[in-house]
């Protein structure tokens, strides 16, 4: 039932009221079957798809790693040719960093944000679907190169001249460049969606100091992405035009600058690594306190530390280029900045330790992942301090020490909180608990396997083993440590396998979960498990950071109201509130299921396929289809309140 009236006073109702659930389900539920799959704009479905797809890429990247570890288990092995190894390590890096680490956190945030913020959906539901479809298609686009034997092979960082036409004439690098540009569109629209959702769709009373830290983390990452992704997209365009249209940006003979690529790439790359950990740190900050039976210590310092990390994160990119012959002043500045950026991380670390110490910790599987992550974070952080000290970096850079550092920060700060987060929110997503018994096995195998695998890399790096080598000579002292790493890597992989088994088993036979199995404080735990399509029967009114703990914390007289609020059932609707004070401002009309996002994503895919095939016809067709899809999407709709009533204009 649409209405196009200019304004109305929304009905206030009690959530348990007659027929409300049935009414809202009819309005919000996605169509069944394949129609629903292709046209759903439900943020919960999209979030879960993101997580599942990201995990598929995690497994792909993991298999690539295991194959490499076989090759490196001993000196002078000939399991892989150099070309095969080089494609593997390039794809491993690209897959893990772009197709797993960013998207999995997007998935969490997509699923959780409206539930955390007290809203019925994100600000742009169709854009949400688009960001997923593009992610999927961009990943497929890249992986098509593998069976063709044409996978990118110049590293995930893709430096010219090695990645330029002269040294890499085949389409391998074009898969990389176009794939990354394509994926960048997904990241950008996703970031825009988060930012606008934060500004507009919070529940009344959810002021900025009541936001869960996950929201802070994703918000910061999103703004960071909006400012950083254009750098790498531009770099890819410039290298693509160098390779295909004869421009000279990186062409040394014409005074082109290989270092221009490195600047643009790392001006994106460094903020990106914060974008792929800050939301995960938010997961820890939100979930850990539940198992410590107390609110997070130092909410404000932690929120500010999140923002400070991202801001300083824009000023350290040169530390990836310390050995390139930079002037002394630049080296000094960027080294100092790279050391200083540790300070906000220290704030968060002590906040978490204090939360556990002063709380009453309960040892569940999620707690194990979320607390063990702290020591992994510290190890990754201090190895980062070591590489930040520029003269020592002259020795450390491009050795396995850096490989150890980056895996401790990525697996420690992204994977462990993600797994912990899945254990934590699995009941909300599926209505079942994951197995605690399997969870223990899962945790210990992963934790031990990871440390056995990756800690020795610090040592072999200090013994001078360079990165990105498909084999190494005997007698350099690297054999034993590499063998240990290989064993640890396989153990870690078994740990991941145990996680997947737990996931699948629990989907069928997990203990059914109520709305709040962990007795947690935030809004998502006030709705049934799994969450209904409409999220909240009535829009909640929020009075604190911990709405479900208010009675017990009793920190003020005010109480959130979760049972009585705006009903907003004249079609798909949610509430827009003011930016600063979160006061009710507007009734947002939300789009229903739509094929437009999928159509646009497919049109873009056609465009990119045309570009890699050097086909003007295919690219032209793709571009035209893109324009058409956008116009159809944006065509003003009466149901969304986009068309005027009066006949005057």
């Amino acid at each position: 039932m649409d209405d196009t009236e200019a304004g109305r006073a929304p009905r206030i109702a009690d959530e348990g009221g007659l027929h409300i659930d049935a009414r809202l389900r009819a309005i919000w539920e996605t169509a069944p079957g394949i129609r629903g799959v292709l046209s759903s704009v439900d943020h919960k479905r999209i979030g879960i798809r993101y997580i599942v797809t990201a995990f598929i890429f995690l497994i792909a990247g993991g298999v690539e790693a295991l194959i490499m570890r076989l090759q490196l288990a001993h000196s002078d092995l000939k399991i892989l040719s150099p070309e095969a190894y080089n494609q593997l390590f390039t794809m491993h890096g690209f897959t893990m960093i772009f197709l797993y680490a960013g998207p999995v956190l997007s998935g969490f945030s997509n699923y959780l944000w409206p539930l955390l913020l007290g809203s019925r959906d994100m600000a742009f539901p169709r854009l949400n679907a688009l960001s997923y479809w593009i992610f999927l298609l961009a990943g497929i686009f890249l992986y098509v190169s593998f069976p063709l034997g044409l996978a990118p092979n110049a590293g995930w960082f893709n430096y010219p001249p090695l990645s330029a036409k002269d040294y890499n004439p085949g389409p391998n690098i074009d898969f990389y460049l176009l794939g990354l540009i394509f994926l960048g569109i997904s990241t950008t629209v996703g970031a825009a969606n988060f930012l606008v959702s934060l500004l507009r769709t919070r529940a009344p009373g959810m002021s900025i100091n009541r936001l869960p830290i996950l929201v802070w983390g994703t918000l910061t990452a999103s703004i960071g992405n909006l400012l950083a992704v254009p750098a790498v997209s531009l770099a890819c365009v410039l290298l693509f035009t160098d390779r295909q249209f004869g421009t000279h940006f990186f062409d040394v003979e014409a005074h082109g600058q290989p270092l221009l690529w490195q600047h643009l790439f790392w001006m994106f790359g460094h903020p990106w690594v914060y974008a792929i950990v800050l939301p995960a740190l938010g997961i820890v900050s939100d979930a850990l306190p539940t198992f410590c039976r107390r609110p997070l210590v130092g909410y404000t310092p932690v929120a500010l530390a999140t923002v400070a990390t991202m801001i300083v994160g824009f000023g350290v990119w040169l530390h990836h280029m310390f050995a390139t012959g930079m002037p002394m002043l630049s080296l000094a500045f960027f080294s100092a900045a790279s050391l200083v950026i540790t300070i906000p991380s220290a704030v968060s670390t002590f906040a978490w330790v204090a939360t556990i110490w002063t709380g009453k910790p309960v040892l569940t599987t999620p707690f194990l992942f979320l607390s063990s992550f702290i020591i992994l974070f510290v190890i990754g952080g201090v190895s980062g301090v070591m590489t930040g000290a520029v003269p020592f970096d002259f020795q450390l850079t491009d050795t396995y020490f850096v490989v150890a550092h980056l895996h401790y920060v990525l697996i420690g700060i992204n994977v462990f909180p993600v797994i912990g987060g899945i254990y934590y929110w699995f009941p909300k997503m599926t209505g079942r608990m994951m197995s605690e018994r399997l969870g223990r096995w899962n945790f210990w195998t992963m934790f031990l396997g990871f440390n056995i695998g990756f800690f020795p890399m610090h040592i072999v790096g200090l013994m001078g083993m360079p990165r990105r080598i498909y084999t190494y000579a005997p007698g350099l002292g690297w054999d034993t440590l590499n063998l240990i790493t290989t064993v640890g890597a396989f153990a870690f992989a078994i740990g991941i396998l145990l996680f997947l088994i737990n996931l699948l088993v629990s989907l069928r036979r997990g203990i059914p979960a109520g709305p709040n199995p962990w007795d947690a404080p935030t809004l998502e735990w006030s709705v049934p498990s799994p969450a209904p399509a409409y999220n909240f029967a009535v829009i909640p009114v929020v009075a604190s950071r911990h709405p479900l703990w208010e009675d017990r914390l009793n920190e003020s007289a005010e109480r959130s109201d979760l049972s009585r609020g705006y009903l907003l059932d004249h079609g798909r609707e949610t509430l827009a509130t003011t930016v600063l004070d979160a006061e009710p401002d507007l009734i947002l009309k939300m789009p229903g299921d739509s094929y437009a996002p999928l159509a646009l994503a497919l049109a873009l895919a056609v465009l990119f396929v045309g570009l890699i095939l050097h086909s003007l016809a295919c690219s032209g067709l793709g571009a035209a289809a893109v324009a058409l899809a956008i116009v159809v999407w944006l065509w003003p709709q009466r149901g969304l309140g986009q068309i005027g009533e009066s006949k005057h204009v």
Partner: protein
Amino acid sequence: MSELSLRDRVLPVGSFGRKSSGWYGVWTLVLTEATLFAYLLFSYFYLASQANGDWPLGGPPSLKLAAPNTLVLLLSSAALIWAERSGARKGKRWQLLTGLALSLLLGVAFVLVQLREWQTKSFSIHSGTYGSSYFIVTGFHLAHVIVGLLLLLALFIWALNGMFDRQRHAPLTIGAIYWHFVDVVWLIVFTALYLVPRLK
């Protein structure tokens, strides 16, 4: 009791100007695209700093076509402002349609003049780092202009179909922000590529 009691207040419904989600959305688009141009100009100046003289090729680029073209684009924005303020907001259909059409035509003129200017250049996109930079920077801008023209065309068609009224014309407000952004970017690009070389 909650601190925020929900009195019976009337709330607007749907897309209204600055209250619409799309208004916030287009500003995030502006943010990210502005950053793109910042990186483009960074690349331009970085390559300039590493070039051995001969930058720009053949001296500072001629203003003969570029300066009047700048005016054309500014007028196009002005026409769009007029279309929104005197047309849409006052419910006057004729002003709206004329303003949109004028804006569109001036935008098309900009594109044609720019293409003509490209033709008159003594260098090509293959002429070293300057040639590549000049054409890519102005090319990126031109691509944004063309997208803007398609947008203006869509707005014109929707206005023609009577989809906008005095209260509801959010697509127009949103599209106008994008178009003005493209204009501002041109001012910055023009300054960097055409005026800055003349400062020496």
